């Protein structure tokens, strides 16, 4: 029988993978995709717990996470286009103007 812990284990592994990608990759779009991976692992946790507790609230929350992810995708990719136009790169190592 599949318990909620099985799903949460998969979600934990996915979240750790996404965090590793965010910390190590240098292409800003790939970093962005790793953030999406982390958001999705949290969504899986929400839906598994909502199924386990027989409540609808978790799934509504997933809805809002998806809304924020869509807004983030639109604004983030527009930022990347602007940055590429100015600096001709989206390597996150080159984006260091705010670095002390």
């Amino acid at each position: 029988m599949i318990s909620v812990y099985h799903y949460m284990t998969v979600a934990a592994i996915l979240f750790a993978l996404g965090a590793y990608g965010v910390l190590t990759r240098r292409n800003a779009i790939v970093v962005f995709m790793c953030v999406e991976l982390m958001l999705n692992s949290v969504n899986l946790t929400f839906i598994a717990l909502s199924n386990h507790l027989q409540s609808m609230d978790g799934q509504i929350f997933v809805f809002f996470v998806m809304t924020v992810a869509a807004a983030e995708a639109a604004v983030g990719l527009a930022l990347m286009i602007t940055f590429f136009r100015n600096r001709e790169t989206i390597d996150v190592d080159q984006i260091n103007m705010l670095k002390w």
Partner: protein
Amino acid sequence: MEIILFYLVALVIVISGILVVTCQSPVNSALALVNTFFCLAVYYVMLHAPFMAAVQIMVYAGAIMVLILFVIMLLNLGTEEKKRFTHGVVWSALCCFFLMATSLHFIKHGSVTGAEGNITPHLVQSFGHTELIGKTMFTEFLLPFEIASILLLVAIVGAVVLAKKDA
């Protein structure tokens, strides 16, 4: 039977997650990410949430990934040059390993508690998942729903302003 499907899908999810992180070309990463989204949709169906599975495929695999692929092609990014080995990679691998180890430890030794609702799988099957979600969203969560619509409007305006040629 269900457990075999679960482990199969878990295997595919983890492998495509690793591919997202390790692929040199961003297009390959994006395709692996689409694969992950489809596998998560399978899980949502197994968790008695078919509407969320449909939304996952339409919004994530459909809209967001098309946007990301579009930007990858627009910027015409080639394959990343060979990664130089830095201490940062080792430290982040260690951090993520500890992150995973602690969360797996808590999952293994903890127990789930929370307020139990009354949405049983039987009710979902007889009444319909979409109706149940709509009922909750437009009564209990109406204000957050409206705020989300304003957030989307702001995101549209912000994206247009940022990506404009002579900003």
